[in-house]
């Protein structure tokens, strides 16, 4: 790895580089670098969360003792022993790390179930929401960008205004308005739960609106740039129509930054959906985390965050590897040219 003094935007900038031949080597190097990242993030997030939650005010057994009428010293001692809270901190930390490596994130204080079980039970709903929201955003953004790129000042102004609205207006308020309109005023969609595809519509639209705002900006900017490049003229002289020029040639220039952004968003969505899940009273991982924070359920908070962090890095790494495989210009960064 070399250090370079590139500006912050460099990661996602389009670079000029000689054509590379060694596709597999490049992809392999990116893969190895990313695997190291994943290990580092797993270890660092587990450690960080462990240390932070040790610093949390109050004794952990207080949460466990909630709801018990008579808290005698004997009961307290028993609970402390049961959950191993009397062990030295270093030992607890070691056992926690060891557990993670074996896929064991401990047991929730509140729900009294293994954390992995709780995550497994909720990940499906959150993934459905995140997937539907992102897919919708990609479809809408592509459409907007295809139609509006290179169309002169007025179209640019209108799309910019819409995009500004989409990213400035808090999405939970948009969701609240959608809920008022299509769940209460005109009862089409259910106002809570995750049963059936109908219950997915409003949350997915709510999630998609701000993402569409940013994605369409990214796509449109790149397409605007690409439309001025000489190869477009070449394609046009070969008799390609406007539709073909835009869809087959110009759009490709915009795909990579959009892909990187989508990956980052998808990774963070699994936590970021918390607000929308709360609004639509929809079961999911985000809500599990929020409830755990409110209840002070330490193992559950740790488990969800470590899981979320690793998932985040894994998805971003996949995107990175994919991008290296797709775009020859990125191979130079992997050290192969």
């Amino acid at each position, binding site marked *: 790895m070399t250090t370079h003094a590139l500006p*912050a935007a460099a990661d996602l*900038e389009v670079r000029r580089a000689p054509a590379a031949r060694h596709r597999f080597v490049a992809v392999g190097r990116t893969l190895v670098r990313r695997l190291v*990242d994943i290990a580092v993030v797993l270890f660092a997030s587990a450690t960080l969360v462990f240390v932070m939650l040790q610093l949390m005010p109050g004794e952990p057994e207080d949460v466990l003792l909630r709801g018990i009428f008579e808290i005698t010293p004997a009961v307290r001692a028993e609970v402390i022993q049961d959950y191993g809270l009397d062990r030295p901190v270093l030992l607890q930390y070691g056992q926690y790390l060891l557990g993670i490596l074996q896929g064991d994130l401990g047991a929730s204080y509140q729900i009294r179930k293994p954390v992995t079980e709780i995550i497994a039970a909720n990940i499906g709903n959150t993934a459905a929401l995140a997937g539907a929201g992102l897919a919708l955003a990609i479809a809408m953004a592509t459409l907007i960008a295809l139609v509006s790129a290179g169309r002169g*000042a007025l179209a640019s102004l209108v799309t910019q205004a819409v995009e500004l609205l989409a990213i400035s207006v808090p999405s939970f308020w948009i969701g609240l*308005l959608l809920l008022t309109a299509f769940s*209460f005023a005109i009862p089409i969609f259910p106002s809570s739960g995750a049963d059936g595809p109908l219950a997915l519509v409003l949350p997915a639209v709510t999630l998609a609106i701000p993402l569409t705002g*940013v994605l369409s900006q990214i796509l449109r900017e790149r397409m605007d740039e690409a439309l001025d490049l000489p190869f477009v003229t070449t394609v046009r002289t070969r008799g390609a129509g406007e539709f073909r020029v835009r869809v087959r040639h110009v759009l490709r220039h915009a795909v990579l930054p959009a892909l990187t952004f989508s990956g980052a968003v998808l990774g963070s969505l699994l936590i970021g959906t918390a607000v929308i899940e*709360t609004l639509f009273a929809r079961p999911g991982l985000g809500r599990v985390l929020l409830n755990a*924070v409110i209840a002070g359920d330490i193992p559950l908070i740790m488990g969800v965050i470590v899981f979320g962090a690793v998932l*985040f890095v894994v998805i971003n790494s996949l995107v990175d590897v994919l991008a290296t495989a797709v775009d020859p210009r990125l191979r130079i960064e992997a050290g192969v040219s």
Partner: protein
Amino acid sequence: MVVSAAALQTGLVRSRPFPGGTVVAVVAGAVLLVIVALAIAPGLFVQVDPLAADPTRTLQPPGDGHPLGTDQLGRDVWARVVHGAQASLLLGVGAVLVSLTGGIVIGVVAGLSRGAADRVLSRGLDILFAFPDLLIAIVLVALLGVSLPTLLIAIGIGAIPGYARILRSQVQLVRSAGYVEAARGIGVPGILVAVRHIVPNAIGPLLVLATIGVGTAIISASALSFVGLGAQPPTPEWGLMLSESRNYLGLAPWLGIWPGVFLAVTVIAINVVGRRLQRRFVSGAAR
């Protein structure tokens, strides 16, 4: 939700000039001034106590002494919306000050360090930056407990990596400039060079982004209040008001409208002004 500032920071989105931009920015600035006035002196705009409940007049529609109606406890919605400006602006500006302070310290250290230290710092910042601000904020709220000061600090810290990254790259551009070399050459101590010469010349883009950061922080704060990790009842705070309206949408839809309108208008105004500043002071220099 919090994507706008992040997208701007990564350079994925560049704002470009358009006709009439100045007029729009002036209007947005005027709107912002009004919001600031609401925050500083809400008493000038509304005489009703935002906390005064009236059990005989709950969920009244707008009109009849209550221009925006009353909520589930019979409190005046207009009074609560006006008083809500204070919490949001304080949280937004306060959180950005926290991010700026942390971002400047870490960014300068990272920008000036070389070799292994630089690699570790910048890689660490990259990884932290990649994590959603809101996640970092939620962890901190879990650690520090639920309250408004906690929320301010949590959101501020959550955004530090983004600010630090920008300053780091700016410092790296500036540190090899002629005047810095000259200052070093005549024997000015390192710390003094950093404080007197490098920081003032590197900090411009950061300050402009901080403007947009206020809007992002306001949205984060209201979102966390909305899910119960921020302002607690009976505080008049826009996110919390929207959260409370959730149970009465069928009966009293107006409860879910006005706090959102104020929130949205505030953030839009901040973003418009911020982008104008960015176009004016950053893009020209960067491109």
